[in-house]
């Protein structure tokens, strides 16, 4: 981008000497590396020292005293460090009642003489219940030098062995260690220190060690001296650091695993490669620090827009997870050793508050995480359809023309988006009157076809007294403050801006009111919201964000809450949309920044990607990583935000996008227009077919969202999550299953690719969705599929019943009473199962049982539709079951199954009957599901079987 500006200008004036060496893409130097960050340098160096020390000589300075019971399931241990004997720390371990035995480990400095307090509210924002109820069955046994807690459901036999000196905590399942805390003795918590004493010490000490006045103890074997400890200058910004050093480092080892996943958001493989040691793929640790990054690298541990401090460790026989509830800047080193994966987490501030998720399978981890942070709620059904965005649709005419063009080309569309240019001078809520003279008229016109619009509302507020939002924040005193207590202003889209402090509860009711349809008269209930720039992005701030010594409500520094900040904004906007209508409708809010818990408030996307093949390829792993960390409603800008993709790349991007939970095309203002109708055939036809396929498969997507809302299951399911026992699939991150539908998808991400390879884990036949080519059952096989531009790998796993709607309307809400098709792909035993969940798609009636949820089962002879109910997992408790006479079910009582297609029967049935009525069908012979050779499967099509989706029925095949 930047180079092109200059080179174009240079061409104009004909001066070639101006062409300076320029780099494309991200300005890496705008963001800190570990070595440029004082706390990371200090704390990471402990690992370097440990590695350099002769084996067995490096010992943790931390030791525990005897435990003190706090409550049932909760104990405390006084914790001391030999480095600073006078400082008191405390370890608290809670065993939670829910979640199959989740242990919570907290460490804080207590009885400090300092005026400061470590930030301890991350749990308040991230957890559904910041003080989860405790297990009454956990038992602590303590003998000299050792404490041991037994807990968990009877099947799991979990225990926590706590070694007092030096400090070490081991989580075991059935006696086998699965998580070790402080195995390498890297744990460290920097206590609050006196700046004056330290200053003197700095002067006295040599470069390698701190020698405190009156204290001859040499701590340099563990602590590194740091001139930046109390004030840190980076580039042109100085962080005043009034609290001085307050970082902490966690040492977590996962014995017996070879793969760790998680820590989104990074443009890195799903199975996280090493950042340290001899096999390191990256030279810097994975960083969790939400930033507005411009043209990010496609393979890098650099931090991006979101941060979920969750890690899964997985092996053939077990899965465990760690959720580190910390909102400050965090770096994580990963190292694979032959016996374990070792991780080292260093954070700038906060208490230690870690949840150990026991697993033992990936699905348990998803549920345990969802129990703690909340599952993603059912989104409005239309938000799972196609979104068309661009920076910018310029005016009303532009918006309505795009809307019309989609109709003219019979391409479905649900949502048209407005980026920042809709707002007069980027004063969100205020429309640019020249371009949008009558927003309600426009919104009504769009809504007349069942469509919606989304407009952007960012967290920065133009500093202008005449701007209502600004004046309100000033009058309510809900702006983020500078370290001196005055209101902070930074530079963003509107120029000089203030930032609403959503940590301040006084901002909440006010923000809700801003979206009230009576307050915001130029909006309607067809308008939804996009929260961008909420890392927060500040163009003239350090790392394009806010100074860390800024102050939020409660006196907390920005450094303490940085990664949580964007989630609160997302949350408040979602609450405002729920509140604006009665009865309430489901909100839709897209956020760019996210944290653990953000999944409760809406969707996120992967930010400002590039329109190139490398970024297309990278999206899958990024989205899989989000999906296993609960942030299931995710997508990437289809086409790539920057640049002009070739038609081939655009088609491939749409193919990928149609299989992302959030499916939105978006483009930068400098790009050529690329709405799908603008292309010539065959490209337009390809794009149209892909979008229509998404609409046909919307029932599958809604099922997956429904499952996610109940159990926290990923919508995009990576190989390891579906087949946790198949080691060959553990590193696979370029293909995935859509929910539990049995659809296996792989995006084609290579230019000119004529074939693609799909890995099959299980011993089942797979069927090509488009050609019904049957690939016979064989575990651990790699299939090679033909993938000319018109197609891509989409397979149905044998044993699946896929519900779809073949009739595609202009928008998805218009399809509510259209018939369904059931596609049955038989497993090698000739059987299959599937499900269908439907509700009104917009309201909360489903929470009162107004929905239908059907289970389909084919046993080789009979196809049955029976009611489905929530599973047994604890998280599904409280789900209101439905009966067939609920309002919604009555409303769709006439909705029929128009077609049943069965792939893989081994012979033509003599007759097919329903209620003793013979049903018409056609049969074309082909390979059977238990066949051994590849070829077109047999296809049976039952026409108009005369059954609906609401009631029970049976169809007999004889």
């Amino acid at each position, binding site marked *: 981008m930047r180079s092109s500006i200059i080179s174009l200008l240079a061409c104009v004036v004909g001066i070639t000497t101006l062409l300076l060496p320029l780099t494309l893409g991200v300005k890496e130097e705008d963001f800190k590396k570990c070595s440029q960050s004082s706390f990371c340098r200090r704390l990471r160096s402990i690992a370097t020292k440990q590695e350099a020390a002769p084996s067995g000589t490096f010992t943790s300075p931390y030791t525990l005293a005897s435990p003190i019971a706090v409550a049932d399931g909760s104990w405390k241990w006084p914790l001391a460090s030999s480095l600073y004997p006078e400082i008191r720390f405390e370890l608290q371990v809670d065993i939670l009642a829910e979640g199959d035995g989740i242990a919570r480990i907290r460490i804080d400095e207590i009885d400090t003489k300092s005026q400061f307090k470590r930030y301890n509210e991350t749990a308040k924002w991230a957890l559904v219940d910041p003080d989860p109820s405790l297990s009454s069955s956990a038992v602590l046994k303590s003998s000299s030098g050792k404490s041991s807690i037994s807990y968990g459901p009877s099947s799991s036999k979990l225990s926590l062995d706590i070694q007092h000196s030096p400090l070490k905590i081991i989580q075991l399942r059935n006696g086998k260690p699965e998580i070790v805390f402080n195995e390498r003795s890297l744990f460290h918590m920097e206590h609050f220190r006196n700046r004056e004493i330290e200053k003197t010490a700095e002067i006295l000490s040599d470069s390698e060690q701190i020698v405190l006045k009156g204290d001859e103890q040499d701590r340099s074997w563990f602590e590194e001296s740091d001139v930046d400890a109390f004030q840190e200058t980076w580039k042109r910004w100085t962080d005043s650091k009034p609290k001085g050093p307050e970082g902490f480092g966690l040492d977590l080892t996962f014995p017996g695993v070879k793969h760790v996943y998680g820590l989104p958001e990074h443009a890195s493989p799903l199975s996280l490669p090493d950042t340290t040691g001899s096999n390191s793929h990256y030279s810097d640790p994975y960083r969790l620090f939400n930033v507005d990054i411009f043209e990010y690298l496609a393979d890098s541990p650099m931090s991006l827009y979101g941060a979920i401090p969750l890690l899964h460790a997985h092996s053939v026989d077990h899965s465990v997870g760690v959720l580190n509830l910390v909102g400050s800047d965090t770096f994580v080193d990963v190292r694979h050793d032959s016996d374990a994966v070792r991780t080292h987490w260093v954070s700038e501030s906060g208490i230690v508050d870690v949840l150990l998720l026991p697993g033992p399978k990936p699905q348990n981890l998803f549920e345990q995480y969802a129990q703690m942070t909340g599952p993603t709620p059912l989104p409005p059904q239309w938000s799972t359809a196609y979104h068309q965005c661009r920076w910018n649709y310029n005016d009303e005419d532009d918006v309505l023309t795009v809307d019309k063009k989609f109709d003219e080309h019979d391409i479905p569309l649900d949502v048209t988006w407005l980026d920042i240019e809709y707002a007069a001078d980027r004063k969100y809520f205020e429309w640019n009157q020249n371009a949008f003279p009558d927003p309600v008229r426009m919104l009504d016109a769009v809504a007349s076809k069942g469509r919606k619009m989304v407009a952007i509302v960012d967290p920065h507020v133009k500093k202008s007294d005449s701007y209502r939002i600004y004046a309100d924040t000033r009058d309510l005193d809900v702006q983020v403050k500078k370290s001196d207590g005055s209101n902070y202003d930074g530079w963003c889209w509107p120029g000089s801006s203030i930032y609403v402090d959503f940590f301040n509860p006084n901002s909440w009711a006010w923000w809700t009111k801003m979206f009230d349809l009576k307050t915001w008269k130029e909006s309607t209930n067809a308008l939804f919201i996009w929260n961008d720039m909420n890392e927060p992005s500040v163009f003239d701030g350090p790392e394009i964000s806010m100074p860390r010594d800024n102050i939020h409500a409660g006196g907390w520094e920005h450094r303490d809450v940085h990664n949580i900040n964007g989630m609160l904004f997302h949350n408040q906007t979602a609450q405002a949309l729920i509140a604006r209508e009665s009865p309430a409708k489901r909100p839709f809010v897209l956020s760019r920044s996210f944290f653990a818990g953000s999944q409760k408030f809406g969707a996120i996307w992967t930010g400002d990607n590039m329109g190139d093949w490398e970024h297309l390829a990278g999206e899958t792993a990024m989205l899989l990583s989000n999906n296993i960390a609960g942030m299931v409603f995710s997508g990437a800008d289809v086409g790539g935000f920057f640049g002009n993709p070739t038609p081939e790349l655009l088609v491939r991007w749409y193919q990928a996008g149609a299989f992302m939970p959030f499916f939105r095309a978006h483009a930068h*203002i*400098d790009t050529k227009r690329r709405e799908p109708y603008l292309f010539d055939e065959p490209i337009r036809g390809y794009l149209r077919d892909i979008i229509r396929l998404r609409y046909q498969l919307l029932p599958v997507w809604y099922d997956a969202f429904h499952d996610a809302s109940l159990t926290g299951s990923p919508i995009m399911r990576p190989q390891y999550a579906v087949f946790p026992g198949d080691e060959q699939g553990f590193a696979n991150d370029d293909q995935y299953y859509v929910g539990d539908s049995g659809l296996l998808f792989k995006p084609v991400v290579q230019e000119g690719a004529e074939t693609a390879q799909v890995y099959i884990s299980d011993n089942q036949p797979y069927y090509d969705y488009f050609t019904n080519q049957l690939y016979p059952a064989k575990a651990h096989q790699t299939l090679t599929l033909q993938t000319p531009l018109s197609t891509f790998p989409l397979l149905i796993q044998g044993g699946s019943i896929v519900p779809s709607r073949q009739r595609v309307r*202009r928008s998805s809400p*218009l399809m509510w009473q*259209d018939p369904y098709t059931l596609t049955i792909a038989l497993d090698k035993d000739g059987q299959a199962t599937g499900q269908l969940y439907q509700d009104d798609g917009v309201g909360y009636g489903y929470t009162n049982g107004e929905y239908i949820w059907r289970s389909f089962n084919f046993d080789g002879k009979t196809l049955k539709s029976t009611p489905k109910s929530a599973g047994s997992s604890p998280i599904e408790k409280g789900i209101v079951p439905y009966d067939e006479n609920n309002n919604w079910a009555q409303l769709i009582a006439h909705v029929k199954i128009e077609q049943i297609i069965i792939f893989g029967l081994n012979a033509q049935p003599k007759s097919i009957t329903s209620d003793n009525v013979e049903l018409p069908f056609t049969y074309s012979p082909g390979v059977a599901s238990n066949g051994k050779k590849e070829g077109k499967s047999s296809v049976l099509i039952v026409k*108009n079987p005369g059954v609906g989706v609401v009631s029970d029925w049976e169809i007999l095949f004889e």
Partner: protein
Amino acid sequence: MSLIALIPILALLALSSRVLAEKKIITPDSIRGLDPALYNKYEPNSSNTFQCLDGSKVIPYSAINDDYCDCPDGSDEPGTSACPNTYFYCKNEGHIPGKVLSSRVNDGICDPECCDGSDEWFTGVCFSQCSEIGKKYRAEEEIIRKTRKTGSKIRGTYIKWAQGEKNRIEADLEAKKKEVVEKEKEVERARIALEKTESSSKEELEKKKKSPIYKSLLDHRLTLTRLRSKTQRLENELNSLRSILEELAKGYNPNYQDMAVKAAVVGYEELSGISPTPGEESEGDVKEEPKEEEIKEWELDDLQRKDLEALLWEHSPADEEDGDEDEESGLLWKIDEYIPDSLYDSWETLRDLTIEWLIKLGLSGKSKIVKGSAAEGPHVAAAREKHRNLGNELKKLNDAITDSEDTLQRMNTEFGPQAEWKKLDGTCVDKVSGDYTYEICFFGKTKQKSNKDGSSNYMGTFAEWNTAATPGTYDYYTKQLYNNGGRCWNGPLRSVQVDLSCGKENALLSISEPEKCEYQFRVTTPALCWPEGEGEESDVKVEEDVKAEAIKEEL
């Protein structure tokens, strides 16, 4: 749409739909949604079957409109949404018949193309609005017809005017061509006279050139030339840099969160003395304090142009008595004769100004100056002057001829099939849109002028008609491209695509910018109101005031 309100209707229809579907259809006109033009293909046959229109399949006749897609081409379901890509035919009594895509059938939306609501036979949410829509449609058609009629009359006057213009130019051209022949002869005579006069004074000059001072002067001149070209190069580079920065400062996109750009802009503004306060847009002129030491451009010109040979003449003893008084101005007159024709005009102005100035300062005595008093003697100067004057006249004449020929050529192609667009050549229309006033001058330039500070952006010059269409066709004249405008910051050269249609007035209706700095104008003009029966009349695009007048009539 209220779902609740629909329940009773839906339940009722649901019960009856299966019955309806199985009802035996007797004649094609009872097939829902079927285009009457296809009735003959849907006649029932003796075997009670129907062949899909693409011939791919034979299905039971009862499978027509049974809400299941049997035929790959969808021909069995003209009246339902079962097959994709087919159309539902609406009779639209009271209006013209229409059709809607099968995906619109029973989607709960009342489409104007199917104003009788027949496509919503299941949802039942639509009632016929055809008489109303039909009335409105006919009124609009009438307005369009009227506009086209009025427009084509105006267009008639354009054509007539163009014809007159063409005749005038052609006549003028003839006359000028004759004049050229005469003038060429005169020029030739003057040239011969000049050559004769010149050769006689050459010999003496050669002698004087041998002096060392003359050689040294030649060296000086060479050095001066090199120095000037270096200065020029540096100035060009400086200007280029300045224009880059000016362009950056004017057009930089604050949407790039790039503080480096911002710093560059602020730095530039400080350097060039532009107040950074927004709204106080400066012209970007760099204030130049005239420095005393500064060498004037004309002084250097003077030194360089000084005719050394002429000076040699000057210093011959014979001339000394002429005195100093007239020296400077005399010199100026001498330079006069060596100025190439192409520069003569500007030189003349400079010279006269200089003389005036010299007189004012009392450095030169009088304005009466005898040309050629020094160097060559008046006879040579006079001969040269005469030759040059004649040459200039001839050139002007030839230029005029080329112009006329060019215009005639354009009138046969570029200005439309009947040269009707000639009338609009140079006509400008404008429109205020947002913060800018946009202006387009047909066949000339387009501009975007800020309503805030009067600054203006050049958006392009006429380049071509619709190259996607065949020249001469109506379509060809419905689009114009104006390109190579000013460059946008971080963007392309501005360009405008003009979509033209028939209207009573030449007017710029709307401006849009679908892509950065690539604009689209909608313009109406009578020049596109081809009368009925001319060209592909059905394709004549009429716009302008249809909507406005329709509203008027509604009121």
